[in-house]
């Protein structure tokens, strides 16, 4: 590195494209994220189940190997239920990953008053939220729909084009169900961390919202003798949507359309809460 001048000089060079500035935030946030060895380990662990699923797909198409193991050839069935189970496991892992990474994205900026430094530049609040949420979106995509599609392609290549065409909807379900889960997790984690401003508490709060939401829902159902309490249980809402998307038979206390609407309402509320807090300076009226 050169010896730097100690006098100030103006900058007259070129500037990067305005639309690409959010990517700067994404890059720095992601780099900071992977400084934690624990998170790196958790991220690696998230690929164990897809690897197991990959082996199961291979085994399902290796009749001779199954015979050698003494297992019947139809023991492993690769169908919508297989991908639904895959989605559930990865969904839970995605939630855990979000609980540990999400709160650390925004709360340090708010706690240390860094937001005015971002917004005094040609950089908007929308770009800030986009930059931060893209960290989670890409991280969670890497463990949900991306390996899901890899499994689907693997299965399609082994089972043949007829299976692929008749089950193409599973690929769509994998992507859409992952994206809605990623959206709700990212927005919830960021909204909570923006309001709490303390990383550990925000993480605990996210776990609380998810787990105590279920208990709260059951309590409401029990006291009020209704099924409306399930609207407070995000896991239940997500399960209802996933069951419908993967065409898994299950009894639902609330209609699928209402579960969709409830999830969208949650996303909107989180986005509203987030945008309310992500400001250079808060005006207290």
């Amino acid at each position, binding site marked *: 590195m050169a010896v*730097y001048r100690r006098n100030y000089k103006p*900058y007259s*060079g070129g500037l*990067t494209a305005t639309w690409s500035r959010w990517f700067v935030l994404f890059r720095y946030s992601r780099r900071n994220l992977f400084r934690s060895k624990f998170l790196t380990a958790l991220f690696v662990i998230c690929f164990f189940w897809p690897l197991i699923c990959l082996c199961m797909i291979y085994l399902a198409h290796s009749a001779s190997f199954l015979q050698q193991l003494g297992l019947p050839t139809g023991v492993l069935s690769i169908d919508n239920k297989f991908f639904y189970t895959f989605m559930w496991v990865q969904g839970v892992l995605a939630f855990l990953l979000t609980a540990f990474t999400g709160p650390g994205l925004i709360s340090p900026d708010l706690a240390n008053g*860094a937001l005015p430094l971002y917004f005094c530049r040609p950089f908007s609040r929308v770009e800030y939220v986009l930059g931060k949420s893209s960290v989670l979106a890409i991280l969670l995509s890497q463990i949900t729909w991306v390996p899901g599609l890899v499994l689907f392609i693997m299965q399609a290549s082994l089972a043949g084009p007829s299976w692929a065409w008749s089950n193409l909807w599973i690929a769509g379900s994998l992507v859409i169900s992952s994206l809605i889960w990623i959206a709700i997790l990212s927005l919830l984690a960021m909204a909570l961390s923006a309001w709490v401003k303390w990383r550990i508490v925000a993480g605990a709060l996210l776990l609380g919202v998810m787990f105590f939401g279920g208990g709260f829902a059951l309590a409401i159902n029990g006291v009020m003798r209704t099924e409306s309490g399930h609207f407070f249980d995000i896991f239940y809402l997500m399960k209802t949507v996933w069951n419908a998307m993967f065409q898994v038979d299950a009894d639902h206390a609330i209609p699928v359309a209402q579960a969709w609407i409830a999830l969208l309402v949650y996303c909107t509320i989180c986005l509203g809460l987030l945008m309310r807090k992500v400001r250079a300076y808060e005006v207290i009226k």
Partner: protein
Amino acid sequence: MQGLSVRFGNREILCGMTASLRGRSIGLLGPNGAGKSTLINTLLGFYKSSAGSARVFGYDVGTEIRKIRGLVGYMPENDAFISKMSAVSFVQMMGELSGLPSEMALERAHEALFYVGLAEARYRPLGTYSLGMKQLAKLAQAIVHGPKLLILDEPTNGLDPSARQRMIRMIKDIRDGKEMRIVLCSHLLRDVEDTCDEVLILKQGRIAHYSNLDEERRANKRFLELETYGANGDFTEAIEKLGCECAVTANRMKMILADGVETRDIYRLAAERQVRIRRMNFRRDTLEDIFLKAMES
């Protein structure tokens, strides 16, 4: 600014401000709650104006804020940093967010940190910095992208005397470099007096006074204090005949020199009457006098 007003709820913080600020370094002065920080935040587009408009370098604050922000460097009053980042990464990121390419931002981050005197500590996490060092890091991020206007909100807040001196020296250096215009917001009159050419004094959200400090100083140069030995009524009378206003207490005289009267005329009169002048002072109006007058008005 043309009738610029800002309202939070029912409370009007800035009330119809109209002024054209053209100085190279402008001091924003006023008591707490006068609206200094609100004015800065409005010019940066953080707050929406409820009435009127403002322009920075010809760009409208309401509609062209992105262009304005590209030309401005801002050092906020409060703590503003990312604790786990090293200073060089922090300043580089801020440079990149302002539009500098990554490599250029890194180079300029090093330069800016050298410039503000944080060269040795630039790889340390910002969370470990002292208050003075954090202020310098904030200054570095404000200048890394080469802004045309540097807005400094209470830059010497919480600094010890030597750190304050260093900060003032740096601001003077930036001002004298003529590459950037400076708006310095402070309630410390000394800081503004040391670094600014012009001063805008706010009071209860209104402009109480706007003036060029040099002109003010020149205008007040004719205020004279004398300590004499052997003076009598004859000497005072002679001075008054020149058109000067005099006030005499024991062997001290205070006078306002009339137009065309110079100090050498006073020396001449004293010599003619064998009056010894033991001390002669031009008492200039300090910024404190200007500020107090503005507050009383």
